[in-house]
C-alpha cells in the first residue's frame, strides 16, 4: 500500500489512514454480491470500487424497471382500500 497521506488538513480527530480506507473498502466488499464470496486479500480496492459502481448502476436500473412495471400495473387496477390494507399487512 502507498505511504501515508501527508499535507492533509487535520481537524484533530481524524487523519485518514490506509487502515481506515482498507476497512471501509472491505465493508463495501461485503455488500456486493459479486465479491462477497472472495477473501478480501484477493480483491484489491480498485476492483471493489469498480464492482461497486456496476452494482449501483444495476440497482438504479432495477428501480427504473420496477417503476415502469408499477406504472403499467397501476393503470390496470382500481383504487381499493381493502387491497391497500392487505398489502400493508403483508409488508409490515
Amino acid at each position, binding site marked *: 500500500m*502507498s505511504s501515508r497521506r501527508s499535507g492533509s488538513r487535520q481537524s484533530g480527530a481524524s487523519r*485518514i489512514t*490506509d487502515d481506515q480506507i482498507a476497512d471501509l473498502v472491505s*465493508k463495501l466488499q461485503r455488500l456486493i454480491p459479486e465479491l462477497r464470496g472472495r477473501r478480501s486479500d484477493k480483491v484489491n480496492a480498485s476492483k471493489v470500487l469498480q464492482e461497486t459502481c456496476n452494482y*449501483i448502476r444495476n440497482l438504479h436500473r432495477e428501480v427504473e424497471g420496477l*417503476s415502469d412495471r*408499477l406504472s403499467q400495473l*397501476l393503470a390496470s387496477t382500481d*383504487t381499493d382500500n381493502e387491497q391497500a390494507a392487505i398489502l400493508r399487512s403483508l409488508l409490515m
Partner: protein
Amino acid sequence: MNNPHHMNPRSLKSRFTTRFLRALTKIRAQKPISSSSPTEIFRRYRKIKVAADKSMAYSVRSRKTWSRAMLWKLRSRSHRRRPVKTKFRQSVMKNTKTTTTTGEDGVGFGVEASELRELVPGGEAMDLCNLLDETAHYIKCLTTQVQVMKKIADFYSL
C-alpha cells in the same frame, strides 16, 4: 398468504414502505380518463420513480450526505430553480468531516473513485473516507428500495 415477520415500525424498510405506499395511492388517485396511453404511462413512471427516491431520501432525512443531496436536488427541481453547485458544496461541507484537501484521492484508485462520486448523490463533495462510508449506506438503502418495490409489484400482479 401468512406473513409471520412483522417489520419494526421504526426500521428504514417500514418508513420507506409507508411513505412510498402513500405516494402511490396519491398517484393512482390522479388517474385521468385515458389512463393507458403511452404518454400517461410514462408520466406515471416518472412520478413513481421520483416518489420512490423521495420516499427513501425522506426516510433517511439529513442524517446522511447523500440523502441531503437527493432532497436538495428534488426540491430545486420542484421549484424549477437551477441548482447552484458551489452553494450546495458549501452547505454539504459544513456538515461533513473534512480531513483532506479536495481533489486528492491518495491511495491510487482515483478513476474508480470519481466514477463512484457521480453515482452517489452528493458524492462530488465528499472526501474518500466519507464517500466509501456513504456508498455503503446508499447501497443498503437502494437494496431495501428494490426489495419493497418488487413486493408491491408482485402483489399487484396477482
